[in-house]
């Protein structure tokens, strides 16, 4: 019985996951690092330092996770949930899709559509966003951005283009 409550407490701690993530990252780095030549201390190969860093990261991960087992509140206090109080899935999705839209529209249609799509999609993430306001914002940034980057700073990206092949 006691075991199960302590286990639940453990799984509930944010630092436990933080340590776990570092452990996994370190493991991955170290394993991949062993495929490169390590060499000797005097003549180090390309794999030496990354592998060492991976092992160090694993140790730090264990230490972070281990410290979370200690009783009492840690730096997060009561807030142990992985998600914030009000998860903003839609907004996060919009923010992450915004560069993707920039890549897609920028590559196939040019800078102006890319900019418009990038700003438009990002702006949709805000709770209070309205269609009209979003379109106006995206248009303003497009006009301003294209004139700044294309005319003034000469970024070599066509303003408007059409690449038929996908």
């Amino acid at each position, binding site marked *: 019985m006691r075991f199960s409550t302590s286990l639940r407490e453990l799984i509930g701690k*944010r*630092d436990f996951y*933080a340590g776990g*993530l*570092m452990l996994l990252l370190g493991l991955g*780095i170290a394993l*991949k690092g062993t495929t*490169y*030549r390590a060499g000797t*201390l*005097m003549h*180090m*190969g*390309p794999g030496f*330092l*990354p592998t060492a*860093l*991976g092992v160090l*990261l694993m140790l*730090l*991960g264990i230490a*972070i996770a281990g*410290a979370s087992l200690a009783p009492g509140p840690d*730096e*997060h*206090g009561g*807030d142990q949930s*992985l*998600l*914030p*109080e*009000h998860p*903003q899935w839609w907004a*996060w999705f919009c*923010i*992450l899709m*915004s*560069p*993707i839209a*920039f*890549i897609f529209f920028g590559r196939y249609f040019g*800078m102006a559509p890319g*900019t418009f799509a990038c*700003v*438009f999609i*990002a*702006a949709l*993430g*805000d709770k209070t*966003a309205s269609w009209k*306001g979003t379109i106006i*914002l*995206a248009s303003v*940034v497009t006009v301003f*951005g294209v004139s700044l*980057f294309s005319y003034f*700073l000469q*970024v*070599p*990206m066509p303003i408007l283009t059409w690449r038929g092949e996908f």
Partner: protein
Amino acid sequence: MIEQALSGLWYGFGVAFEPHNIMWCFVGVLVGNMVGVLPGMGPLATISILLPLTFGMKPVGAILMLGGVMYGAQYGGAICSILLNLPCHPPHAVTCLDGFPMTKQGRGGVALGLTVFASFVGASWGITEMIFLSPLLVKAALQFGPAEVCSLMLLGLLAGSTLARGSPIKGVAMTVLGLFLGSVGTDLETGSERYTFGMTELDDGIELIALALGLFGIAEFMNSVNQVAPINTKYTNVSIKDMRPTKADMKRAFFPMWRGTIVGSLCSLIPGTGPTIASFVAYATEKKISRHPEKFGTGLIEGVVCPEASTHSSVQGDFIPTMSLGIPGDAVMALLLGALMIQGIVPGPQLISQHPDIFWGLVASFWIGNIMLVLLNVPLIGIWVKMLAIPYRYLYPSAMFFVCIGVYAANNDFFQVGEVAVIGLFGYVLLRLGFHPAPILLGFVLGPRFEENFRRAMLISRGDILVFVERPISAVFVALCAILIGSQIYFRLRGAKADLEPAAENVVGGEAPASLAAQRVPATPAE
């Protein structure tokens, strides 16, 4: 020595007064002041956005402008703290404590006026320190071999990750991660590819701009979207007339200002203790030596000028190790070093002698820039205050565009835009898990140089790892590292972290992953 420094400074003013340089300096401080005022945009994200635009510029102009953003943002941040009680930028969080009560009493203008004055004094002191200390440091550093450079970097990295905010062990983990990220790409010595997973775009390593904008741009937007409180503009009517302090105010502010300046300049000498810690230490000291400590927090002018002077003196002082040793103290300095490296300039002790125009031009531009900032802030205060009202829903989508186009323009390649999205997502996960991403950048920028020097030291010593403790200077650095780690463990076991930490956490809010932490309020649940 002094003569040499003064003639260097004279030369620097010549460089900084060249028309295009003075223009870039002005652009830098203007943009810096602007983003300092805007809640939700930090100097880190701004410098990374501007970085690709500087590729076509001469190195001097580029570094003057990027440096200007850094210290310009400090002036803007104070406005935000005093008038809105929003600690948009961590170094100014402590200014809220006495600044906002002053605003409520209708003395916000006076607080601002004296802040500008104190900032200028603090900055001037920091610059003076830089002029005279840097050449001395360089003289010592030129004697360093690879082993010394290596252990000095180790000390800088350790200090940068453990003395900053948050858990020290997590900071070290982030530094290690940064060092690793720096090793991605083609190995300089053997030419073999590491961790590229077959993507040729990664051969040159991870793009510095993509990393910085992912961690401090996108991750930050994800953290604060829909979480920003509506801004209370009730007290933001400040005119230039209100800013003139009375004689009594000046008298009361004079000594705290100097004490803050001294504290800040001392803090800047310890690597890793940036302006944030400097301002908290200054406030705590001022409160301790005050005859009426209980009045702090009710709107004392001492509680405003002291931390502000300290911040500015420390911001300028932070440039000392960065420019003279090539060891950045925090993420912003790491980014500036990265900007220099992109321009093909090798940071390190040889920088002052090889590129005197950059070093002395930068020093001189600090003074010019600070004078510009005083001129910008006093008469134009009304404009800055109006900028506070720009809502976040307009701000972050526009910033997203600048992020995308900035990363694209770095290489004219869409691959990096995808990279920035991936890094942003990863950065947000780290933020949620209580990591502070700033040390990643520190490790990333120093990583390749650390590896190079480590290999060289090992080659010279014929694979003897003891070389780091056998050479006296290096041994001192290693000992300092050991003391640093030992004291962290000691404080941990005693249950108290560094004694200024609780104060810092109280003001900035329990978990402060972001510049916006303190203004995050529970958003109303979506219906």
